[in-house]
């Protein structure tokens, strides 16, 4: 099973190809564009991952994105309501970007890559936890994630259970 993970439109856009639970290739877009912390769509990183895996975009079983955009947008809108009128500067900067780009992530992914299969959206902190735990040497682990932002959570704790299959 081939799964391509994509991170984009926030900071340090990147892509990663998994095959049957093993990391085949991973790269940050900045390595190709020479633009530090490049937040654009990581087309170069995706091309690199697919080429390392010797597959095309149509060979993917799933494409995964690292958070749930609509839940994050809900949090952002409620934050602007809750902090009115102090938040106009941020509102003016963020909302056009959301309307133009971030609310259309599935369509943008399909348009940029030509991918026609299923796109999966993981919880932001679950994505952080998975990216540490699933490549760690531990069978089982306590997991703590601390981040400036997510959908709603900024810190989560949980348990990575022992598992025999990827």
């Amino acid at each position, binding site marked *: 099973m081939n799964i391509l993970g994509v991170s984009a439109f926030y900071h340090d856009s990147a892509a990663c190809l998994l095959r049957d639970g093993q990391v085949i290739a991973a790269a940050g877009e900045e390595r190709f564009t020479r633009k530090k912390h490049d937040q654009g769509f990581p087309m170069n990183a995706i091309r690199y991952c697919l080429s390392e895996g010797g597959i095309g975009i149509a060979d993917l079983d*799933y494409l995964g994105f690292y958070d749930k*955009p609509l839940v994050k947008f809900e949090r952002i809108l409620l934050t*602007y309501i809750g902090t*009115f009128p102090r938040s*106009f500067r941020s509102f*003016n900067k963020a909302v056009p970007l959301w309307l133009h780009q971030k609310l259309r992530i599935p369509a943008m992914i399909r348009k940029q890559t030509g991918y026609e299969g299923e796109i999966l959206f993981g919880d932001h902190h679950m994505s952080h936890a998975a990216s540490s735990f699933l490549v760690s040497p531990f069978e089982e682990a306590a997991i703590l994630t601390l981040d400036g932002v997510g959908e709603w959570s900024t810190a989560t704790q949980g348990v990575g259970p022992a598992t025999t299959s990827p």
Partner: protein
Amino acid sequence: MRNYFSKIFRYWMAVGHVIGVVMTPVHMLIVYVFVFGPANMGARVLRKDLLDRSMRDEPSFWRTKDATDRSVDALRHTF
């Protein structure tokens, strides 16, 4: 002829960009004041803690997450 039109196109796009830079904040301000302002007042009147900032009598800020559906189905949604 093609050069001539591409020049017009470039100028037109530049004018469009300037109009966007000026008008976007105006539209955003209108939406902010007339949608988010009343919503803020409504939340205050109804004493809604939209951002879950009050501690009430709870001993901790930690929230127990509902048993998340970890099936592929749950991942299919952007919400």
